């Protein structure tokens, strides 16, 4: 039953992506804003403009353009960026690792903080200090990631200048790495000096993305823990003389994890969407920062490629979360 649902979700991916492609494509074409006008030097002749238009296929009817583009995308060709004048797929592949590393680091920080806060909150359950934890969680949740980014930048970049506030790494460091997953590769190959320099730059943007998500994890997990602790099995374990921390950690926690992953996992997409602005604020060279430039420059092929990339990431994340939940929950596994 549950596996059938997953298969159904798989089948729905292509139509969803197709819908996304149609919407972006039509949106960009029907509204005013001419990418060619933004790239020509002043004084270009009508013939030059016409040639450029034809070069990027913008002189074709919309339906024709869409069919051409769809055919190319299906064969892995996302076209050429108008503003950067490079292959869109190459641009995406060069920048995507930076965003993925940032999102992964942020997720790890968030889970760590969130679980810790939830455990403290549940240990304080019923005491007066509980509302301090709840209030803190509420505060963290109410302020979105990009505001945290600005606050952290002011606090730890300017007022107490501990950390750098722009870029992915110091320009003078010789990277000579094979992949664009700088952090992962440098850790795996034992080049911890580079890893440290990277983390130095990533910690503020990652923290900004992590804080609201950590609060979400904490709130969900704490509620699930409280609910699970009130169940009969936990009460019985208590009656048999097991200590409360022991029960919480070994009996209650595994059961509380399932709803937390189910509800919180989907929200990782929010964290991923947040990279757009947080990267912009910290001048971090990921796809989010590139997306804003692409929009400002009316770079149609790049925008289309970026939006599709984000859509694929979003859908993949949702599926992974469903898979994890299905594997965590014995009721669903055998259902």
């Amino acid at each position, binding site marked *: 039953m549950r596996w059938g649902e997953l298969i159904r979700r798989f089948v729905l991916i292509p*139509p969803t992506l197709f819908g996304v492609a149609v919407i972006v494509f039509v949106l960009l074409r029907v509204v005013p*804003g001419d990418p060619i006008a933004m790239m020509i030097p002043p004084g270009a002749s009508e013939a030059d403009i016409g040639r450029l238009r034809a070069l990027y296929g913008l002189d074709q009817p919309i339906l024709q353009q869409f069919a051409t583009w769809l055919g190319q995308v299906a064969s892995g060709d996302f076209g050429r960026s108008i503003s950067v004048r490079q292959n869109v797929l190459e641009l995406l592949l060069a920048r995507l690792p930076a965003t993925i590393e940032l999102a992964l680091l942020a997720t790890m920080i968030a889970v760590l903080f969130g679980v810790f806060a939830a455990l403290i909150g549940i240990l304080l359950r019923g005491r007066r200090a509980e509302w301090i934890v709840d209030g803190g969680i509420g505060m963290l949740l109410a302020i979105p990631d*990009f505001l945290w980014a600005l606050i952290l930048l002011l606090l730890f970049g300017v007022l107490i200048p501990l950390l750098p506030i722009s870029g992915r790494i110091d320009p003078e460091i010789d990277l000579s790495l094979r992949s664009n997953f700088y952090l992962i590769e440098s850790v795996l190959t034992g080049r911890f000096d580079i890893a440290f320099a990277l983390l130095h730059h990533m910690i503020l943007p990652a923290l900004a993305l992590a804080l609201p998500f950590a609060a979400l994890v904490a709130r969900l997990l704490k509620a699930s823990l409280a609910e699970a602790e009130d169940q009969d099995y936990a009460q019985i374990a208590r009656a048999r003389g097991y200590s409360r921390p022991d029960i919480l950690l070994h009996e209650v926690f595994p059961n509380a994890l399932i709803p937390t992953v189910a509800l919180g996992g989907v929200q990782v997409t929010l964290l*991923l969407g947040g990279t757009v602005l947080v990267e912009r604020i910290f001048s971090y060279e990921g796809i989010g920062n590139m997306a804003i430039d692409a929009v400002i420059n009316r770079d149609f092929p790049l925008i289309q490629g970026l939006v599709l990339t984000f859509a694929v990431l979003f859908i993949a994340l949702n599926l992974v979360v469903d898979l994890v939940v299905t594997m965590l929950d014995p009721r669903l596994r055998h259902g």
Partner: protein
Amino acid sequence: MADIAVTSIAAPPSRLLAGLKRGGPRLWLGAALVALLVLAAILAPVLAPHDPLEQDLMSAQLPPAWMIGGEPAFLLGTDSLGRCVLSRLIYSARTAVMVALIAATLAAAIGVALGLFAGSFGGWVDQFISRLIDVWMAFPPVLLSIVLAAVIGAGLTSVIAAIVVVDWTRFARVIRAETMVQLTRDYAAAARVIGLSRAELLRLEILPNLVPLLVTLLAVEMGIAILVEVILSFVGISVAGDTPTWGSMIAEGRQIVYQAPWIMALPIVCIITSVIGLNLFGDGLRLALDPVQRS
């Protein structure tokens, strides 16, 4: 039946009081902060000590008055063009309030209509609207609103359009689910038995029960709308260049953050206060309106 309906409409004052009490400090604090924001927006010409556009290059980047080098005439200092930061903050509240009110209301109207449709008709109508929501949710919302605002062009209308087009799903999803739940309740069945049409059932029975939920969603959405406007003007694609907005002030402040950190810090404080105020207000109102939430 009729008697019950009449007494519940003419609520005795004690019920109103009980509701306000249930809202608790959240309601009061939230209402106070929201009132502050709205008053600043309405009374901007009276409150602002200077014209927010008036430049004075001789007194550029002055720190707030209580800091060394500050001038009492510019209570919160000046930006790099010598414009009064306090006046710009106050005038920015106008844009924020306008966007919050209009965008949230329109998004709610569309979302509620589609949510009610999907939730009450079911079948292919529900399938169609749900798929539409799915496709919408596959976009990163921030990126989508940036793309939208950029392609529609600068201006308040385009900011509002971007928010409405992106955020109607927030309402549609929740209202659809809640409509389905309410329709299974006994009172809905009873209403059908006494012969109410689908439209009457939705309008007279279901919608009033959705109000507490809707109020919370609206308040939260107003906060989101303020944030989206900030984001768009931070990126540089919101209202025209000379209209002061918190987002454009932050963007300017980011450029000179080492020399004049207060230019970036002050609008952030305004934004956080407004958004937290709206969240508290929404929470408090829900508690006040919904007797079931009492626990």
